């Protein structure tokens, strides 16, 4: 029983990280209806930036804040410069450009910061007040930070006019334009926010899995699975999906198939969700006109 609880809580801790990656993916999907394959590499690059700042002597939270701000700006710039010209291009073109971005960010991480595995400091000391037998300090701390990010985003979308404008631009771009919303800039904003959320997720995960250019590969896949499971149009659902994926991964790994086939589990989840329940557990059914 103890072991089961341990697996579940460990799954939830991992799941919150997958959930934040899923959140970043859903934000870009809601705004642009494209799946950002480069999300993981952008998060890794942001984490490397934070590492670089800390190596230069900055304190953790100063580096954290600066990285989040720079990632936001970076995401915005990527959307404005690289993606805007191909907004109306067919899906294949967009997918190829995303893969190109994936390669470029991966290469940048490797070239600027070399390929050796690095350790990344955790801001939460091992004996913090919120640590417990079931939730080690870092897991509890990261869960807290990510839930805080979720809360801020929720408040932003619900209670600010910019958030409302973004939601309008995503739901109905034509009408939004008629009302005076600059839809293109809303897309850029969405990308900026997603990049910032990805940076936070990367910095929360790096102390656990160590920093290397391919850090986010598996995590990205779980993020995808979580986003699909929760419903790709639903941000809260995406986080819930991520947590669910984390718990499932741990339970299946511990009791059913062993820890070696984790990526296969993600694959089966993705294909299963897409074939059996394409709108996810919490998504709404979208009907497309012919």
């Amino acid at each position, binding site marked *: 029983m103890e072991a089961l609880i341990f697996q579940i809580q460990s799954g939830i801790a991992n799941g919150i990280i997958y959930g934040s990656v899923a959140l970043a993916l859903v934000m870009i999907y809601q705004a642009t209806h494209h799946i950002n394959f480069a999300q993981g590499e952008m998060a890794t690059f942001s984490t490397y930036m934070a590492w670089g700042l800390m190596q230069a002597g900055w304190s953790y939270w100063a580096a954290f804040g600066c990285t989040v701000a720079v990632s936001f700006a970076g995401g915005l710039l990527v959307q404005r410069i690289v993606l805007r010209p191909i907004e109306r291009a067919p899906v*294949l073109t967009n997918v190829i450009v995303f893969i*190109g971005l994936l390669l470029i960010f991966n290469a940048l991480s490797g070239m600027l910061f070399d390929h050796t595995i690095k350790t990344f400091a955790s801001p939460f000391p091992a004996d913090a007040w919120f640590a417990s037998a079931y939730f080690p300090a870092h897991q509890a701390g990261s869960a807290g930070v990510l839930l805080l990010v979720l809360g801020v985003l929720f408040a932003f979308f619900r209670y600010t006019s910019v958030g409302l404008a973004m939601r309008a631009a995503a739901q109905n771009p034509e009408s939004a334009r008629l009302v005076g919303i600059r839809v293109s800039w809303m897309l850029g904003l969405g990308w900026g926010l997603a990049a910032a959320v990805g940076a936070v997720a990367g910095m929360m995960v790096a102390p656990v899995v160590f920093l290397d250019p391919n850090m986010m590969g598996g995590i990205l896949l779980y993020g995808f699975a979580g986003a699909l499971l929760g419903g790709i149009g639903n941000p809260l659902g995406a986080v819930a999906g991520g947590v669910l994926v984390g718990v499932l991964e741990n339970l299946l790994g511990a009791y059913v198939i062993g820890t070696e086939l984790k990526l296969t589990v993600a694959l089966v989840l993705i294909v299963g969700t*897409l*074939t059996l329940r394409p709108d996810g557990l919490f998504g709404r059914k979208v009907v497309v006109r012919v």
Partner: protein
Amino acid sequence: MTRPDRNDRLHRGWVLLGWGMLALGLLALPFLVKNYRAFQFSMVLVYAIAILGLNLLTGFNGQISLGHGAFYAVGAYVAAILMDRLSVPYWATLPAAFACCFAFGFLVGFPALRLAGHYLALATFALALAVPQLLKYKRIEGVTGGVQGIVLSKPEPPFAVRMFEQPLTADRWLYFVSLAVAGLMFLLTWNLLRGRIGRALVAVRDHPIAATAMGVNLPVFKSLAFGMSAAITGVAGALGAIVVAFVAPDSFTITLSIFLLVGVVVGGMASIPGALFGAVFIQFVPDIADGLSKSAPAAIYGALLIGCMYLLPRGVMGGLQQVWSRWRGRAH
């Protein structure tokens, strides 16, 4: 019309001469270069076949696949297991790989029927990421050789011949085998695309609903496209295993799938000769760029993918065709 018959015959004469010289050049090539270059040229041909397979699915049929490395890996492992565990001669593993990968691709095609665009890209991306882990799985280690893979021995040439003072080594012999297989695969694909099936595939890509209204059986054709594409890439994988004489799970990561996609985009989507350009590209660019930095090839590929989408959407072949048609327009 200025004497069409004479111009036609002259034109055909030149084309035949061009093809003849090309054939002679290809046959003499391995003897003009060192052994290792012959090996590299064989790999170019192997990649050309793999890229052709991917092009069939993505370029001609419009189904995005980021997971063709998985089919390549299956073909390679089928060949390796047959050669190593069952002592099947190397040339017999190629049809076996074709059949196995056709079945596998057809099966993958079924869930793919319900997926379009991004979701298919996502599902195939997941497949490509999961395959190396699956290959390392301990329970099937007896068959697949686990993390260390399977070491094969290069087949010896069946007869001895010397040209330009160079002997026919195993590497050179495998170049000729690859050339023959590549020729066969290109011919097969060209024939397939020229007829009814080819037109149906392109119709499904351009406007699936109109195609269905015209009587094209969408599920059958889409699964068929997946199956054929996987089969061709599987043959490339098997040939690759024979040429390299080694298979291991870490040779077939997501990087391979992405490189094949780069080959398709750079060579030219929906272009059969473009596959050869793409293959030359992905074989030789890493060698040249590695000197700069370990990550340089990835950066170059990324920049090229984006650049091609902006400037050369139909790849090198498309660009060449544009130049050619402009030149012809001026001359006549």
